[in-house]
């Protein structure tokens, strides 16, 4: 019963090494180039040689990909000017070279220490993602870390063709502390980890259809899910938008009146909430399917 390293605990570099074909990762703007944030330096905050995002070229299953991984430990994986420009550049390169592009997200959103520069960078990256999509170049967001994908990075992830999540991943905009501050601790206790994960975690997102795959907290499983999606893309067509509009309207109508995630789970066909809570990602996915 030995297990490999948990994906959510790996560093960005470890994740990349484990996701791509062995030895295939070729880092762009690698640490020896020492491109570090002048903002943080001015503020007396330690800088990092990759500015919190590792980007590069690699292969997955022999297929060429561009891939980025955010470093959650470094300023919460937040997007600053350099960090954001690396992401924009990578997606632009993907669109230009018609190479699928993957972003392993671990970020609370915009790096406040760099103000609006990070915000604009996220908006620019979104444009670049849609450039890819217009050319049917697959874009995939991987969300499987403790920090999750929040703020602008949460929104950015929803611009990609596909999202691969683990039960550890969380996808949202406002983080638990912001919600608690806004609604009061009674209405939302951010220290109630079970509630936080049921609000924004991979399982709920998968049930609702916002995650395309819910996989083990393990690089091998994520790699497999990515490999399956690499040949596909989700076109932005009028028909697709109308269908999605209906789906989202239906979701809001069905569940907009409840604050209880369990009600959503039940509504989506999960029968045994307790067992489903403890189940691993794929087990959960199977249970949800059976429920339906």
């Amino acid at each position, binding site marked *: 019963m030995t297990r490999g390293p948990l994906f959510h605990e790996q560093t960005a570099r470890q994740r990349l090494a484990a996701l791509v074909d062995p030895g295939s990762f070729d880092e762009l703007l690698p640490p020896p180039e020492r491109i570090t944030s002048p903002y943080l330096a001015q503020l007396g905050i330690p800088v990092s040689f990759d500015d919190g995002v590792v980007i590069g070229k690699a292969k997955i299953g022999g297929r060429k990909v561009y891939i980025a991984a955010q470093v959650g430990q470094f300023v919460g994986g937040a997007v600053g000017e350099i960090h954001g420009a690396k992401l924009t550049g990578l997606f632009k390169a993907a669109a230009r070279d018609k190479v699928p592009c993957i972003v392993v997200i671990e970020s609370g959103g915009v790096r406040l220490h760099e103000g609006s520069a990070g915000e604009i960078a996220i908006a620019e990256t979104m444009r670049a993602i849609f450039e890819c999509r217009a050319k049917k170049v697959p874009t995939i967001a991987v969300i499987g870390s403790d920090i999750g994908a929040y703020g602008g990075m949460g929104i950015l992830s929803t611009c990609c063709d596909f999202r691969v999540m683990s039960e550890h991943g969380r996808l949202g905009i406002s983080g638990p502390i912001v919600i608690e501050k806004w609604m009061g601790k009674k209405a939302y206790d951010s220290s109630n980890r079970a509630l936080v994960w049921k609000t924004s975690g991979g399982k709920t997102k998968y049930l609702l259809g916002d995650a395309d795959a819910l996989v083990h907290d393990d690089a091998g499983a994520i790699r497999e899910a990515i490999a399956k999606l690499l040949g596909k893309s989700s076109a*932005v067509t009028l028909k697709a938008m109308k269908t999605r509009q209906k789906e989202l309207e239906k979701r809001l109508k069905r569940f907009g009146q409840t604050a209880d995630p369990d009600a959503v789970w039940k509504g989506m066909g999960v029968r045994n909430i307790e067992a489903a809570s403890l189940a691993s990602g794929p087990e959960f996915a199977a249970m949800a399917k059976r429920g339906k």
Partner: protein
Amino acid sequence: MKKPSSRALFAKLFGPSAKGISVEKSVLTGYAAAGGTKVCVIGTCDGTYVDNAAALRLAAHVIDCVEKHPKTPIVMLVDSAGQEPNRVAEMLGLASYFGHLLSCLELARRKGHKLITVATGQAVGGAFICYGMFGDRIYALDSASVGLMPVEAMSAVTKIPVPVLRKLSRTMPSLEFGAKPFALLGGVEEVWSAKEDVQAKLAKAIAAASTEDNRAELGKKRGGRKLALDIRKKVLAAAAR
């Protein structure tokens, strides 16, 4: 600067045709005209918070425009303090609702609709990212509050004292809050004074708009965001090797 009322503002931008804009729970949808050109209008007012329902209404209107009014420019007005930070919104996937709205706008762009944003009031955080910053060209009234967040809020979260941030913002406009510094970063094409003929400016902006994202170039040229463009180019060059 005193903030003009929403209706007065619409009138300034669209003249009498502004009556074609309906406001429901601070969400605007409708059709109007700017300098004789028919436009589709979506947006927010009253500094409202954007929630799932608001995103859906905006998206529905974009779809309507694409379906029924081919190539009609879409004008996006932004006056919103942020995304609705509540648990139900998050549980139901507010990010996905925003992603859907952005996808609808992208569809419109690909179908030949020009997308022009005018930040009229607050244009802050998630509420600006979820549609306004997705325009082909982005403008702001000088009365608008544009940016990530005011220095005080930034200080509260980062624990860096306000005076330090203020001092740094003199050389780093990115840290400053407002339409003008945002324009220095390239995030806003041009800041319009309410005293000017903004309708004419809007019409001109629509005519001139192109889909190429020019913000990094602008940011470099204006000196507010010196690194982004070069880093991006480096990545593109390195990827080609």
